[in-house]
């Protein structure tokens, strides 16, 4: 797919401009849009991002970083984007992007209207789409469906929003990516390529749908005891509160972790070579802490769960299982016996019709004979009901649970306890080593103190987070039981069955979406590792890295020929940038046919990296559009591009030249 033209009206410095991008092919695929500082390179990238995604494109923009006020700042950002000459009368900004893909073309136009005071309101936005060989106008649904239709169209035909940060890049975002560290970069990329945010959103919507459907059965709700309904409502409210608490903790942790990483890097920059080992120690401590936490959870779970029940002993469990079976047989016999009595009544009626009146004595002896033949109580039925709390399904699940308890093993519990103790020992050793390295000088000591304080805040927030997540899981298990209980009652009210079935299906699909994310992750990691390796080796200085391996837990290893992980030796800022670009390249290869558009991506790289990056990205084959300052690309770089360069377009004005961008010929 190629971007063929960009039409801008009243957007920042562009009053009425059409940029025609020369058509390319697989071996002539690079276009340079060149401009001095202030010429409008970043404005051009912003125009593309906003045209594609509208309001949801705002977080992609480096110059609109006020996430806390996103809703308001979108309108304000647009108001600031309206050309100064247009202020004082009703006006509009219009951005049109034209794409060609094989024989078909797509033109996407987004228009924002402004009143005479230069104000833009959320509803004052229009979208038009022309598609197909005849450039037919695509019919859009009415509000409120329009936005989701456009979003789906852009996702399907152009570029999903979650992949945009990897295709529409500016130097600042690249810096942010590179600043995250290798593991976090990979995690963000994998989530993006699998569409995990979309799937997670879908699962939430489905669960909301199921909840709403269940609320729509008032006549059946009447059938549930008031206490159960109140308990369900209470649990759901607690679940909502707990989710909000978990989200708030995640939000609070993010800046703390960023600050911690930044201090670790600063300490590293003070100590040169010792940085790598310091960082490695720090990361190892984090990893051991995490794994100890999960082992402890498992151990506690086993001790107060299965082991506690199993302690009751095999004899009692066996008796309980046999009793359950005997009560089950008794219930089935009772049910069969009732059916038999009804048949006996029919039989007597037939006899009366053919023989007239039957004496009481005859009826009594017939009854006894019938009972003997058809429904004599078997000896292995329970004579009374001890487990009246168990229904038919409960009997089965409790018996299975009791059977499973026979397999509790001491080794697994003891192994877990030993693993926790070993982790404690390792953490102590690492902390001693960290303390030794921290004491190198006054400045690093000050940083280390700050690091300690932040680490304590993180540890406390993480502990709180774990607690809340555990509470949430337990709540959900209880909710699931209560819903099952409520569903049973509701199912008895047969009229409600279709609605309930839809709610249950929605819950099931939500569960599938959750599992899909878990299952898809490992399947994609090998391919991602392979593609990142190719890109990294092509662009990095250090050819000593033979292979990049992305492990199942998202951790990244840089492996030398002998299989050793040499990641700690590859921790320079430049190498992190190269790794970030490798991820971009890998995702472009794996997940998209959209052009890669980069705004001043090379400025922060040294000449060798710069040439490697140009060479690698230009040889990928897909369209590559570089928004650059003239100083970024010297004769050497242009030489590397060679015949791959389709054209260079100047943006804005410079003293000795005039923009090659044309005045607009007309809108879509």
């Amino acid at each position, binding site marked *: 797919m190629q971007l063929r033209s960009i039409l801008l009206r009243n957007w920042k410095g562009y009053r009425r401009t059409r940029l025609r991008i020369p058509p390319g092919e697989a071996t002539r695929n690079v276009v340079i849009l060149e401009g001095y500082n202030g010429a409008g390179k970043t404005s051009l990238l912003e125009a593309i991002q906003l045209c594609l995604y509208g309001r949801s494109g705002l977080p992609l923009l480096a110059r609109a970083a006020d996430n806390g006020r996103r809703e308001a700042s979108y309108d304000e950002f647009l108001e600031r984007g309206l050309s100064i000459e247009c202020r004082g009368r009703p006006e509009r900004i219009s951005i049109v992007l034209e794409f060609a893909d094989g024989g078909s073309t797509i033109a996407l136009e987004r228009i924002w209207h402004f009143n005479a005071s230069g104000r833009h309101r959320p509803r004052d936005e229009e979208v038009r789409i022309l598609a197909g060989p005849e450039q037919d106008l695509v019919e859009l649904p009415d509000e409120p469906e329009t936005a989701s239709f456009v979003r789906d169209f852009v996702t399907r035909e152009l570029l999903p929003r979650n992949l945009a940060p990897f295709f529409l890049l500016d130097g600042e975002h690249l810096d942010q990516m590179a600043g995250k560290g290798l593991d976090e970069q990979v995690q963000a990329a994998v989530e993006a390529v699998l569409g995990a945010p979309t799937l997670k959103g879908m699962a939430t919507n489905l669960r909301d749908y199921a909840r709403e459907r269940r609320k729509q059965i008032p006549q059946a709700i009447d059938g549930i005891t008031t206490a159960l309904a109140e308990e369900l409502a209470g649990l759901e409210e607690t679940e909502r509160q707990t989710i909000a608490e978990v989200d708030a903790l995640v939000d609070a942790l993010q800046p703390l972790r960023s600050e911690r990483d930044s201090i670790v890097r600063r300490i590293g920059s003070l100590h040169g070579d010792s940085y790598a080992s310091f960082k490695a120690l720090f990361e190892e401590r984090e990893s051991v802490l995490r794994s100890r936490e999960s082992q402890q959870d498992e151990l506690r779970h086993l001790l107060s*769960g299965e082991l506690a029940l*199993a*302690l009751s002993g095999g004899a*009692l469990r066996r008796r309980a299982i046999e009793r359950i079976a005997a009560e089950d047989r008794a219930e089935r016999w009772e049910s069969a016996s009732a059916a038999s009595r009804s048949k006996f009544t029919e039989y007597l009626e037939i006899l009366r019709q053919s023989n007239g009146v039957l004496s009481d004595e005859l009826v009594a002896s017939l009854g006894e004979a019938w009972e003997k033949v058809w429904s004599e109580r078997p000896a292995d039925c329970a004579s009374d009901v001890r487990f009246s709390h168990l229904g038919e399904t409960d009997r089965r699940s409790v018996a299975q649970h009791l059977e499973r308890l026979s397999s509790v093993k001491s080794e697994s519990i003891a192994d877990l*306890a030993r693993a926790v103790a070993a982790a404690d020992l390792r953490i102590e050793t690492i902390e001693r080593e960290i303390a030794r390295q921290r004491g190198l000088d006054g400045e690093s000591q000050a940083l280390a103190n700050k690091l300690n304080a932040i680490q304590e805040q993180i540890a406390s927030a993480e502990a709180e987070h774990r607690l809340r997540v555990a509470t949430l899981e337990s709540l959900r298990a209880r909710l699931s039981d209560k819903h099952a209980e409520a569903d049973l009652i509701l199912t008895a009210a047969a009229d409600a069955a279709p609605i309930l079935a839809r709610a249950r299906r929605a819950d099931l699909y939500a569960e599938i979406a959750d599992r899909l994310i878990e299952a898809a992750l490992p399947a994609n990691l090998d391919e991602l590792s392979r593609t990142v390796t190719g890109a990294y080796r092509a662009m990095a200085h250090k050819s000593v890295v033979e292979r990049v391996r992305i492990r199942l837990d998202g951790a990244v290893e840089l492996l030398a020929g002998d299989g050793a992980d040499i990641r700690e030796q590859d921790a320079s800022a430049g190498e992190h940038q190269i790794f970030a670009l490798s991820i971009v390249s890998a995702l472009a290869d794996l997940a998209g046919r959209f052009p890669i558009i980069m705004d001043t991506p090379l400025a922060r790289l040294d000449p060798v990296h710069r040439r490697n990056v140009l060479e690698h990205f230009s040889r990928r084959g897909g369209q590559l559009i570089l928004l650059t300052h003239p100083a970024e690309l010297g004769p050497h770089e242009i030489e590397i591009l060679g015949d791959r360069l389709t054209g260079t377009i100047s943006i804005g004005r410079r003293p000795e030249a005039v923009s090659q961008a044309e005045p607009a010929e007309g809108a879509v």
Partner: protein
Amino acid sequence: MSATIVDLARGDFRTSRAADELNTRFQSLLGLPHRYGPARLALGRSLALTSAPTLELNTLGLGRQIKGEQLFGHGVELATWLTLLLEHAGATAVPRKDFQNLVGAHWHRGIYLLWDDWKSSGGEFDAFVARLVQQANRRRSKTTQAAS
């Protein structure tokens, strides 16, 4: 009226104060985050004896209460505890109050048995856990006291 599963989940349960203090001590020794951890182990331990327990209250009185849904969990776990307690009691209908007393008595007896187990294991976590697992897999019940 016999105790239903809802009674069990919503009811409050307590044991003797001395047993409750021992429960707290176990919570710390085993690194368990909740009171119900040692309490469940105690219930299981006491259920392994065939005789019925009695709640021995001394001058210290009763310990703190715990909700049934915490002590026994929920869903199939809750139903399994109720099944084992009723089977052990050999009763078809246990009034709610009697059931609470029964649980308190099992808890009391079980926590003291666990304490004997802990001492016999030399205060070693691994040895203690191995001992409990051995108890769990024993096919025949003891009549009055735990093997030590």
